[in-house]
């Protein structure tokens, strides 16, 4: 029974003995709580007599001579001292230097960390404190081995791609399953309107400041309890809980500025004009005739990046209260975050509250609830590849134009001050439209635990994750859509839409726990679960507004498109698990889940997901304990696991052949939508994992290494069909891929004196490969590009995220034309000369955190890197376009272009309307490796006398920075980009994507007395 937290003992033991002996007073401190550690339990061993230290860390107790006093507190090593008659005791509690005895929640049960048989990584709140992050997914970046996190852009509250051990799927989701306090939550974008890759993010609604820990389940053993949803890994998030202690109230305040990490080097008016005139002349035309006149055309020189970008303000406030008594514990928290984006008019605000309460109703029955409420207001702007995007418009806009006229009014479409199509005044596009998304999240559960006996526990839980989004949008007559697009009417365009996604979960588990002869530990779990997900959405659009003073659809002249829709899906499951260990030496876990999913046809509705894992604690063997090596190696454990997991996350009703409503000429009818596939079934991943956990030098060095091989078969894929069938694709299980890799996590306490220096390193390498595609036809994805079928390809033998294109061999010094590799030697450069030119998957990713504590000072330095990944700088096909058009500004790189015979350069000749020199080729593919100082924070804890004078318990001030410095060879704005947010097959494309932002902030953490 030592698996239970020590505190539970005191409650269970209820024998009453009268306290006798000497009255002892004392003070309990720790290295970080030098003034006194509150809440420490002080118990006379063998009795229930004891005390708890007060807010100042003091206690007083009657102690009989010769008794043993036990001091214990969560997170600290338990200390026992034999009482020798002192009247005053000063005790220094040592922090748990090893995390091995920590209890970790895995699946539906919890286990001591040292007894884990699978691959589980933990991230604690402490590791991410001071870093300005918006959502709970962002916290994972660079912190955990085997986890790749890419922020799609620098948009606040924007999309983030998290991949655990690579990507397992092409068409179904590749995002991990996130479970917060037992409730699976919505991931990905919530809003209906696509903003050119810069989506919103459901996980940005959950404040990271209320999170206690993240557990990442990475191998089959750990994930198997989540069966058909587990293939992409599982992230278990636990919110902060109250503890049995005096109430404490804390304030956390952080304020700072947000800036773009890099502006790209574009041409000024004079340089651009000269370049354009050359391009026109090379095409045999007269530049004057096209209105490109020196001294006139370039009379204005606007730096559009400066015009749309700003320094934003970031501020965050949190107040929380926690505490508890014998029967009740609580954690209450409220927080507000306000982050201005670096693009004009872009802002993300979030207000949230958390309430976690647990009440012991009687010795056997405990009732608890966890509730998170959040509301965000997201003022969005269009981005990426939109013609009317803000950042994209700024980098493409010709410097000849101005954002404001002489009266200070924003230049609208049709004005001679801004040329119009294909670009639009990006300042107007930022300031004039209204794209507001109001999102409400309710995440909560109630749970009930009934302890039949010490061995048998019944737990039942019901929870909800509700996400509601209202989108309120208007584009005025002075914008591209509202003013220019004729299909909208040129008189304003408004959209109002609502989306709700809610999932309900209910589960019940029965767990049994028994120790026989002190050696055999057996536990078993049986459970059932139901999950139902409903989504409802509606949208209405209005056009032809009387003027820009009327911006709601009630004033629209024509309201002609409206939709409403509902969909639901469900999962019904049974699961069980058996764990056995012999003397902590040999550990075995068996698990099985049976899932039924509404996503699949009747024939393949149910699936079984078994797993097995075993561990051998070598360090407990007698030959090991006897050897001198035991002095150094305190704990050595070998793990192996195998199992099957699934991925059921596809769109609803894919197995049905369906017809949907269609209209023609004022009549309603039906039109075929898709071909059914009754044989559709889950993607299944067979996983094998071997791992080693080592703890050296009293836990000062802890190492976890894992190697894995995962093979996913029956990949769900929209198999392309020829149109002669009447359809273009059918969903089918037709592909196979593998992920294999190694991971290393290392924590070392380098110095543990007055200066404490800790290093946390993680490294991972994942190799992904497509093993099989039905029809073995390459499937093109990504963007259409000049002269090829697509920027990306799915091809057997290649990983997901493979780039395709012509192979650029250089620039002919004689003609200045691009030279491409004529792969098939047919004398022509066509799409059939396209080859694989690289891929977006990194060869090595990782992070290193160094933490220093010296007295009251603390410093944390966190670097993160990605090595060997390629980024497609697709923007350059517009920004170094060799004269394909003269409607876009060009990069400074264009100054290196070929100009006369004999020029040796890598930028081809500029010639108006020539597309040959701008064909999609390896010229635009760049090394996206980077090393980034992801965060840096420096804190100082005020001395106690000063703190006391402020009537505070503890006050810490800090300064922190994110994305302070980046080393990369990538020539674009930022190597960490993905214009197609969340895409796996087409990741790593930079298409006018807003670079990451840098945050500089200061803050205070304070605990009230």
């Amino acid at each position, binding site marked *: 029974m030592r698996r239970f937290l020590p505190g539970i003992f005191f409650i269970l033991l209820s024998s009453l003995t009268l306290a006798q002996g000497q009255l002892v007073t004392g003070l309990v401190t720790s290295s970080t709580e030098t003034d006194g550690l509150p809440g420490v339990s002080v118990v006379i061993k063998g009795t229930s007599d004891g005390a708890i230290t007060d807010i100042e860390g003091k206690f007083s107790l009657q102690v009989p001579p010769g008794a043993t006093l036990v001091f214990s507190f969560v997170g600290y090593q338990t200390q026992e001292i034999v009482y020798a008659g002192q009247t005053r005791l000063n005790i220094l509690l040592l922090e748990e230097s090893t995390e091995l005895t920590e209890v970790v929640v895995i699946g539906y049960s919890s286990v001591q960390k040292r007894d884990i048989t699978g691959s589980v990584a933990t991230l604690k709140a402490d590791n991410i404190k001071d870093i300005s992050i918006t959502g709970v997914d962002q916290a994972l970046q660079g912190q955990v081995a085997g986890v790749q996190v890419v922020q799609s852009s620098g948009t606040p509250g924007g999309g983030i791609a998290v991949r655990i051990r690579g990507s397992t799927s092409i068409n179904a989701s590749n995002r991990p399953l996130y479970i917060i306090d037992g409730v699976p939550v919505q991931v990905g974008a919530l809003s209906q309107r696509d903003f050119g890759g810069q989506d919103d993010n459901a996980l940005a609604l959950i404040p990271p400041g209320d999170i206690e820990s993240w557990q990442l389940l990475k191998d089959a053993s750990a994930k198997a309890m989540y069966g058909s949803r587990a293939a992409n890994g599982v992230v278990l998030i636990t919110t902060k809980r109250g503890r049995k202690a005096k109430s404490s109230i804390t304030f956390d305040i952080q304020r700072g500025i947000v800036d773009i990490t890099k502006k790209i080097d574009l041409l000024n008016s004079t340089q651009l004009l000269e370049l354009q005139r050359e391009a026109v002349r090379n095409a045999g035309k007269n530049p004057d005739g096209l209105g490109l006149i020196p001294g006139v055309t370039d009379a204005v020189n606007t730096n559009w990046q400066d015009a749309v970008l700003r320094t934003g303000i970031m501020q965050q406030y949190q107040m929380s209260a926690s505490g508890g008594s014998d029967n009740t514990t609580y954690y209450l928290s409220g927080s507000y975050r306000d982050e201005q984006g670096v693009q004009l008019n872009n802002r993300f605000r979030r207000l949230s509250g958390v309430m976690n309460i647990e009440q012991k109703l009687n010795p056997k029955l405990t009732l608890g609830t966890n509730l998170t409420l959040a509301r965000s207001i997201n003022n969005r702007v269009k981005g990426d590849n939109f013609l009317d995007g803000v950042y994209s418009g700024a980098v493409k806009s010709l410097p000849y134009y101005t954002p404001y006229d002489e009266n200070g009014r924003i230049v609208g479409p049709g004005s001679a001050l801004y040329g119009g199509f294909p670009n639009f005044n990006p300042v107007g596009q930022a300031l004039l439209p209204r794209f507001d998304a109001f999102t409400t999240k309710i995440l909560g559960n109630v749970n009930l635990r009934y302890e039949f006996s010490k061995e048998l526990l*019944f737990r039942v839980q019901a929870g909800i994750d509700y996400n509601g989004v209202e989108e309120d949008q208007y584009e005025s007559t002075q914008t591209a859509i509202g003013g220019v697009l004729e299909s909208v*009417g040129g008189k304003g365009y408004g959209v109002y839409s609502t989306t709700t996604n809610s999932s309900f979960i209910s589960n019940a588990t029965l767990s049994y726990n028994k120790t026989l002869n002190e050696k055999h530990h057996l536990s078993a779990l049986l459970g059932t679960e*139901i999950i139902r997900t409903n989504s409802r959405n509606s949208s209405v659009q209005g056009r032809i507004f009387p003027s820009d003073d009327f911006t709601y659809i009630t004033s629209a002249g024509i309201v002609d498109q409206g939709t409403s*829709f509902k969909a639901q899906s469900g999962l019904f499951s049974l699961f069980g698990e058996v764990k056995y260990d012999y003397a902590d030496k040999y550990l075995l876990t068996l698990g099985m889940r049976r899932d039924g999913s509404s996503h699949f046809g009747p024939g393949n509705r149910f699936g079984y997901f078994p797993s097995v894992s075993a561990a051998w604690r070598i360090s407990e063997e007698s030959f090991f304990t006897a050897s001198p090596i035991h002095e150094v190696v305190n704990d050595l454990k070998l793990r192996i696991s195998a199992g099957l997991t699934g991925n059921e996350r596809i769109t609803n009703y894919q197995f049905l052949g369906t*017809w949907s409503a269609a209209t023609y*000429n004022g009549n309603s009818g039906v039109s075929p939508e898709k071909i059914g596939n009754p044989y559709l079934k889950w993607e299944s991943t067979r996983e094998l994992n071997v791992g080693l956990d080592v703890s050296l030098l009293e836990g000062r060095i802890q190492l976890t290494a894992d190697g894995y091989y995962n093979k996913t078969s029956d990949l769900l894929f929209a198999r392309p069909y020829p149109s002669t069938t009447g359809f273009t694709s059918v969903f089918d299980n037709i592909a196979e891929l593998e992920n294999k890799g190694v991971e290393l996590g290392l924590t070392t306490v380098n110095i543990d004196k007055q200066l404490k220096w800790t290093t946390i390193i993680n490294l991972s390498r994942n190799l992904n490969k497509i093993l099989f595609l039905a029809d073995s036809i390459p499937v093109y994805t990504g963007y259409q590009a000049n002269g090829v079928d697509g920027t990306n390809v799915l091809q057997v033998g290649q990983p997901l995220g493979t780039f395709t294109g012509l192979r650029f061999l250089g620039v002919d010094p004689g003609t200045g034309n691009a030279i491409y590799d004529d792969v098939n030697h047919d004398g022509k450069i066509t799409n059939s000369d396209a080859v694989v030119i690289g891929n977006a998957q990194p060869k090595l990713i990782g992070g290193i955190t160094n933490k220093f504590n010296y007295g009251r000072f603390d410093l944390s330095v966190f670097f993160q890197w990605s090595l060997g990944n390629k980024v497609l700088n697709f923007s350059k096909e517009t920004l170094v376009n060799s004269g394909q058009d003269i409607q876009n500004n060009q990069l400074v790189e264009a100054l290196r272009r070929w100009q006369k015979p004999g020029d040796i350069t890598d930028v081809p000749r500029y010639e108006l309307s020539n*597309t040959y020199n701008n064909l999609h080729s390896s010229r635009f593919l760049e090394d996206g490796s980077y090393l980034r100082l992801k965060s840096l924070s420096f804190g100082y804890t005020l001395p106690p006398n000063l703190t006391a004078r402020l009537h505070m318990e503890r006050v810490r001030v800090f300064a922190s920075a994110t994305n302070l410095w980046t080393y990369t060879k990538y020539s674009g704005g930022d190597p960490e980009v993905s214009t197609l947010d969340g895409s796996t097959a087409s990741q790593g494309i930079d298409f006018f994507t807003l670079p990451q932002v840098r945050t500089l902030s200061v803050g205070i953490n304070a605990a009230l007395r």
Partner: protein
Amino acid sequence: MKNLYRILFTTALCIGLLPACKDTLEPKPVDILTDDVVLNEPADVNNVEIGLYNAFRTIAPATVIAGDATADMLINNGTFTQYQELGTKQITSANASVATLWSSIYQAVYIANFILERLPKVEGVPTSQRDKVMATAHFLRGYAYFIAAYSFGAVPLVTTTAIDDNRNIGRTSRDEILAFVLADYTAALGKLPTKPVNTGFAGEYAVQAALARFHLYQENWADAEKFATQVITSKQYSLDTAFVNVVTRDFPAESILEAAYTLTDDPGTNGNIGLNNLFVGRREIIPSNPTVVALASDESGDRFSSISFNADNLKGNDNGWSVAKYGTADQDNNNVIFFRLGEMYLIRAEARAQQDKVTGDNTAQTDINVLRARAKAPQIGAVTKSQMIQLIENERRYELAFEGHRWYDLVRTGRASAVMAAASPNWQSKYELWPVPQREIQNNPALVGNQNPGY
């Protein structure tokens, strides 16, 4: 034993949840119907017929792009690769416009085949309705294959809804396709109402108009003249007195069949093609300089109203002209013409001229002068046969501008090389047919190695 109770309790709980389980695992889809129930009772017939028209209409804007952008009518003026390829005559098999036309044809064919297979088995459908809908399916399928034959040459002849067969289906010669078209047209002849609700739906004279065009393309001059005459003399249609109505209005008096796109129903004229967006919004494709000159000529007269000019647009390669047809979203004139009376006069004129009925009463001259009079353009006088043939070619350019005829006309009369070589330095004879979309070759094994020559 106590533990056993607990286990039983849990099991009972699971069983208690089972009704919820069925509800959870088999949620009812909304807004969709499954294949097996879509056409099995009389009330379904109209719905599926509307579905057929919904798919079929996409052929119209796709044909406008093919007929006008492949020829010398339009040039590119935007950023989309597909129109750059068409405008500069560098068309590849990856071109999205090519794929759109191909797939719009086969989507219409699928529903037509679905109706032809299933409708005879549906009980309780009145004979008149059954005949009408069957005839509609035959006619629209025939037209789809007609466009296919003249756009792509030999194409797969899909006559069933058997998905597995149609995934691996080779090309059938153009002659056989055209024979099939004639059979479909003939099957529809006499079965459709002479006066449909409006000309958004096919009637008897739409079939006759299609036959007139079919025989014109086949150079069966007498049959072409016969069917054109039947339509002209039916008195169902009359030339609008002002040509501008043809440009700015839906359902002009001379409309025989048009693809309907109403304000509330896809005003962008198909999400994939969006003619008003292409022509007026983005101005991805604009009238070429020779087109502007031709339409501005005296001979063209009022047909100049097919294009419009805005000096603000004049810069760089942009000549400032736009296609005025297909209007804007709030002007309800997005319909695309399949057949109208003006074309019937042109077909008859050409058929008569080829039969040496060049000038005099009931000749090419009288037919052309009907259109000239309406366009307030000068009447034509005495000309030779070859002059008349050339004159009709020009007349078709004025009258049918941006209705998707020019490329098909130049190719069928053998004039493509001569005309297009002068218009574009990149023109090659391979462009007399569009390529089979690359996607089709990639996904249909029977098409591998069977691309049109030169692509």
